[in-house]
């Protein structure tokens, strides 16, 4: 027994002395074959390779390379035609007529027909027996084939944002005769699926008969590296050429072999407050928290100052809706925060818990800084780390929390994706925010057709969220893509996608 003890302490010394050499020899470099890139991703596509079943953002960003809808987003966030060449909307906004592009081929060589389009749209709208992929797809009341190159979609009610939904990977056009979508996905995108070994890697190769600009790389290997520190090792060691969604801390450990591209994560990181719980049901308490926080310091401490400070549920990539002035609405003012707490009946502050999913280090870091800052107004915050699944079921779905630090993203390209969740009757209103004025605006905005009116309305909603201090908004986090110097051309999108077709080997 005693021997065992000694052995254990020696084991620790041994481990420590073992990783020293690892640190020293991890600087070796390997040449990558021309035209092949090894991309690290954090998780396997566990939900499905079928775009009509993929729900995780991490799955959709990979499938984006294999699949296309009738429309697709471009790096600026505009919608460009893909499988459809053009489309027209009727006066009443209910009928969409899509003219299909000629000679678009599936990866198996077959030309895309109007039947395939009808099949795909019927499938996601739930007409083939499944649940609708997303509730918005159920809006498609009827999909009919006018002629070989024309498909007409009729909506049950008007929704100006409908084209944006069709540009999601989830609305991909797939062949109507492929029974193995889960294991052998066939689409029309710039890359074709080659192989997958579970929890290891996914291989794609260039599709040479692609209708648009063909990809530059002949092969893309997505390697699953769930652990960030391992990913850094692999990048340094040469087995990975690219890794997205990295933080400043990880980037700072890379060598000069990499170019670091800075983008934004396109999510709203905030201290989300359960508006239904005491004391957060009091607007003044929420405002006090907003005044107590120094967002600039959060950025300085957690990400070397990188990131964009925001003031409402909208990030800068949605330039049409984003209101930069809201980020200056609350600036740190301890006295004012204390006064507000006094008014609300908490002159000595209070205690609160901050629930944070344990797998998101950036959120944990932000929470640690917040705890420190809230001390200044007498609020004692305690961090509770929970597992991601627990967070999803208890905090998000169960709404059983006091406050939580998390990033909320937009799954499609309209402001509604972010603002819908603060409508008091929305299923995903996990913060229990409830404001009659906001509800009225929301009910109004979904019926509007004029884009300018709509935008103005969305902006009013954003302002309400800021004024009522629905949550303590912090930032749209900076994210970094590390790309080996032998490659170039990576482009960011305002959506969570990783477009490999634009990456090319550098000469």
């Amino acid at each position: 027994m005693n021997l065992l003890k000694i052995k254990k302490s020696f084991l620790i010394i041994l481990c420590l002395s073992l990783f020293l050499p690892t640190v020293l020899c991890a600087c070796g470099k390997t040449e990558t074959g021309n035209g092949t890139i090894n991309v690290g991703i954090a998780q396997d596509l566990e939900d499905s390779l079928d775009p009509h079943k993929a729900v995780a953002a991490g799955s959709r960003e990979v499938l984006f390379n294999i699949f296309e809808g009738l429309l697709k987003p471009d790096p600026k966030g505009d919608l460009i035609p893909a499988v459809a060449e053009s489309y027209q909307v009727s006066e009443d906004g209910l009928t969409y007529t899509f003219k299909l592009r000629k000679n678009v081929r599936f990866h198996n060589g077959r030309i895309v027909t109007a039947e395939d389009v009808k099949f795909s749209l019927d499938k996601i709208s739930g007409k083939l027996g499944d649940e609708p992929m997303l509730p918005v797809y159920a809006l498609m009341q009827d999909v009919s084939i006018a002629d070989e190159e024309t498909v007409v979609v009729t909506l049950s009610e008007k929704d100006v944002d409908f084209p944006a939904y069709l540009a999601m990977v989830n609305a991909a056009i797939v062949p109507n005769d492929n029974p193995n979508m889960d294991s052998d996905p066939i689409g029309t995108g710039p890359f074709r699926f080659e192989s997958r070994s579970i929890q290891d890697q996914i291989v794609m190769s260039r599709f040479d008969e692609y209708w648009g600009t063909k990809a530059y790389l002949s092969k893309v290997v997505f390697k699953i590296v769930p652990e960030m520190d391992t990913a850094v090792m692999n990048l340094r060691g040469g087995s990975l050429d690219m890794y997205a969604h990295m933080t400043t801390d990880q980037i700072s450990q890379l060598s000069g072999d990499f170019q670091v591209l800075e983008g934004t994560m396109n999510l709203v990181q905030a201290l989300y407050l359960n508006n239904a719980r005491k004391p957060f049901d009091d607007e003044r308490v929420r405002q006090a928290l907003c005044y107590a926080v120094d967002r600039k310091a959060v950025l300085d401490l957690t990400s070397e100052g990188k990131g964009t400070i925001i003031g409402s549920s909208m990030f800068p990539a949605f330039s049409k809706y984003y209101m930069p002035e809201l980020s200056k609405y609350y600036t740190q003012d301890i006295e004012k925060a204390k006064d507000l707490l006094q008014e609300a009946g908490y002159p000595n502050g209070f205690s609160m818990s901050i629930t944070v999913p344990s797998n998101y280090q950036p959120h944990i870091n932000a929470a640690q800084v917040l705890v420190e800052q809230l001390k200044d107004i007498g609020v004692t915050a305690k961090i509770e780390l929970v597992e991601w699944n627990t967070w999803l079921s208890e905090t998000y779905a169960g709404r059983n929390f006091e406050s939580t630090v998390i990033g909320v993203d937009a799954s499609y390209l309209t402001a509604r994706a972010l603002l819908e969740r603060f409508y008091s009757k929305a299923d995903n209103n996990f913060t229990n925010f409830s404001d009659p004025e906001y509800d009225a605006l929301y009910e109004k905005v979904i019926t509007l057709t004029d884009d300018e009116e709509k935008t103005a309305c969305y902006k009013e909603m954003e302002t309400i969220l800021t004024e009522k201090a629905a949550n303590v908004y912090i930032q749209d986090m900076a994210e970094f893509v590390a790309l080996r110097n032998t490659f170039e051309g990576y482009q960011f999108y305002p959506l969570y996608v990783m477009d490999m077709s634009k990456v090319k080997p550098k000469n």
Partner: protein
Amino acid sequence: MNNNRKNHKLYIGLILAGLIVLLILAGLIRSPYPPQKMEASLKLAGISAAHPMGCDQFGRDILSRVMIGARTTFLIAFVTNAIGLFFGILIGALTGYFGGFFDEILMRFNDVMLSFPSILLALVLIALMGPGTYQVMIAMGIVFIPSYARIVRSEFIRFRNMDYVLAIRLMGGSHLRIMFLHILPNVKGTILTSLIIGFNNAVLCEAAMSFLGIGVQPPDASLGLMLSEAQGFLFRAPSYALLVGFVMICMILSFSLLSDSLKEVQG
């Protein structure tokens, strides 16, 4: 010669333990900086006169955090063993002294507990109670009961039929008196050495649990948690992980050496 070597072990152990205790006591009185104080300009700052161990990823002074971290780790190890020892002695003494059906049942249950890796059992308990410093103490305390119970039981079985015990029984001494006033003092040497081993086990167990993120919660500090945080900065600030690791090694080594020399003294 033999005596000399024994002394070396004892002295090194005492010196290391003394250093650790000094560190903890100094932290109790006053740490060089407030351990939670963040300073953006000092992020991962290296070793300097103002910060002898450098600063962590939030610019917090690592020495100050090691002081309270070592204290937390020490406290967890102490409480864990107190719980384990108290119930271990109780169960071990009763089952060892009386034997019989009751003994059979409790010891088979004990076997079941011991057949799990202790960290797994602690994980299950944490999953039930939620993470946190106190929960870790309770979970680990429960995990530590069986091994103490087993050691105490075997000693009690050895002593229960000895002549002096029989003599006291004939004199009319009660069972409780015999167990705790006459047998227990004879067992204390064995308990002491296993206590020190248990202490080391608890330090390692706390480190493992905090490393996995289910132990002490940030922004509090413990050695395991700090080591886990330092892991992300191995390339940028290797001294962070190495120094925290070194303190942990000192803590474990000191108690190992002490237990060793104690055992030899008992011979």
